[in-house]
């Protein structure tokens, strides 16, 4: 086998993976999204109707029509983007100092600290979200502790509201922010900060003019890793949220499993993917401008 052929074979593997496990399912979803919901198995109409002797492509825009006309979906999308966006900002505000602290920690502690960041992954995501119910509920750990200490006299409403959803998302996705930031900050040459100090920068000025701009790729990667899955999140709003925290991921889940409306669920999924491509493209553009 020639070297060129071998190289192509190696490259073919990830492409095959992407086609098989990403493109094909996406096309199936796309196909279902333009079908009509029917009662039966499968619960959607066939794409090609061959009943009348001739072949006829049977496309229905009904699901997409409902998507833009029914407030429910628009509100759920906007909600999802709001929750994901604000959570991303909080992840950044918490994750940046955390990553910076780990980079600056003595070398022998660094891997331990990184391990602690990753440690929650060793427990099931679902169990960790359930654990937050135990912490946040009316007679949960936090309320009981505050009542016992006499800080409050009435239990606080911490669960089944927006606050609980933010806590859940920030808690769950923080490692995805910390790890790329750590990787980026670790590459930063300490001599650059000395050079900035030498040229008259106080430490905070050096941070703003050197460290922060140079950590932008890490910030972008972390923000995408948090924002994108958070938009589609349905476990956290289902378990910790209330009636006012409807997110698009939960709508999708309900359409699929509660209403058995596969075309609608698929339309929601396709629209979500398209909407997520926008911020990704924007950030890519931004980063290319940075390095050019």
């Amino acid at each position, binding site marked *: 086998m020639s070297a060129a052929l071998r190289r192509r074979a190696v490259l073919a593997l990830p492409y095959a993976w992407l086609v098989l496990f990403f493109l094909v399912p996406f096309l199936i979803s796309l196909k279902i999204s333009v079908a009509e919901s029917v009662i039966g198995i499968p619960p959607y109409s066939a794409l090609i109707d061959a009943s009348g002797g001739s072949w006829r492509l049977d496309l229905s825009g009904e699901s997409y029509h409902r998507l833009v006309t029914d407030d429910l979906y628009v509100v759920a999308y906007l909600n999802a983007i709001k929750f994901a966006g604000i959570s991303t900002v909080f992840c950044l505000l918490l994750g940046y100092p955390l990553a910076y602290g780990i980079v600056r920690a003595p070398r022998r502690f660094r891997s331990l600290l990184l391990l602690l960041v990753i440690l929650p992954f060793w427990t099931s995501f679902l169990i960790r979200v359930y654990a937050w119910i135990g912490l946040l509920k009316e007679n949960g750990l936090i309320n009981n502790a505050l009542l016992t200490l006499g800080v409050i006299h009435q239990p606080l409403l911490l669960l089944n509201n927006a606050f609980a959803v933010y806590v859940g998302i920030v808690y769950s996705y923080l490692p995805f922010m910390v790890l790329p930031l750590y990787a980026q900050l670790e590459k930063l*040459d300490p*001599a*650059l900060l*000395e*050079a*900035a*100090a*030498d*040229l*008259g*920068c*106080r430490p905070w*000025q050096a941070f703003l*003019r*050197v460290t922060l*701009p*140079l950590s932008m790729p890490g910030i972008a990667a972390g923000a995408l890793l948090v924002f994108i899955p958070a938009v589609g999140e349905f476990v956290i709003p289902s378990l910790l949220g209330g009636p006012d925290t409807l997110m698009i991921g939960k709508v999708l889940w309900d359409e699929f499993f509660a209403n058995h409306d596969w075309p609608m669920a698929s339309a929601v999924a396709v629209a979500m993917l398209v909407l997520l491509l926008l911020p990704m493209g924007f950030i890519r553009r931004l980063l290319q401008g*940075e390095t050019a």
Partner: protein
Amino acid sequence: MISPEPERPANAASYLRIEGVVKRFAPGAAAAVDGVSLDIVAGEFFALLGPSGCGKTTLLRLLAGFETPDAGRILIDGVDMAGVPPYRRPVNMMFQSYALFPHMTAAENVGFGLRQDGLPKAEIAARVAAMLDLVKLGPLARRKPHQLSGGERQRVALARALAQEPKLVLLDEPLAALDRKLREETRFELVRIQQRVGVTFLMVTHDQEEAMSMASRIAVMSGGRIVQLGTPQQIYEEPASRFVADFIGAVNLFAGRVAGAAAGFLHVDSAEAGATLVVEHAPLPTGSEVAIAVRPEKITLAPDSMAPNRLAGRVRGAAYRGEASTYEIELAGGKLLRVTLPNTGRRTAGYATGQAVALAFAPAAAVVLP
């Protein structure tokens, strides 16, 4: 032996004064800088020269304020720098790695300190342009560091260190990252810029040739201390110790014992040379152990038969270097000597390996080391 204080411009006040500075990186550890005192005059090109680990870079970082001394004082322009952070010191540093900001263009790098000082935009632009012209980088102002060659990056770093018009610029191995040919060209360039701007340069280097060709004064450091201070010529021709003689250029050393002194000359019995050598030197007690140091270019081959310090040997190897040839010559006792002869003619035959030769050096060409 202490070398005489080198000449300095008349009534020039010292701009940088270092008094008994000590720096240890861990309590109880050997001092990286061990009681260094130094005066540097405004407008000088001064070199700290020494092998790696001699403390020269630590001393530079103490001056820039990146490290704090454990003892001693640093005065810049008469002001004690104790407790003064790097961003308030009137010095700028050119880093060995250049430490250019990768997200900024060459012009933005040069203007970094000026922006920090809050200068008006027009003035920054004018000064950045002047600095880039000084280092001949005008056309590349909008390139980012990764789009520049090593030599261009080096010049951006220099322009950045000069942009805030400091009176003292610290240069940490400024030429180490350049290839050989560029390094030699840049030596002259650096001296030219230093003289044109009239700023004081304090350079750290491990390259003796670099230090000698650029600096007006050199401090040779070893083990955290200054072992000799002087002009390049003093350092080369009057080394104060075997370490300095050996570190600065090549040298032939003859171990020996003083046999007597007469009329400004010292007679030294050397078993290695297999002869009694005569050198110009003040009297020393008979019997004291000394070393006679002779530079390779100060030895002549095929001297006349009456020449003093005439020795016999055999050529062991020859290296033709273009402008000169270096011979390795073995004396009768097995001692190897290095002799450099200029190639004055185009068709000089030179000496062949194995050939028996006579060699000699003048009594004034040698130095007596303790």
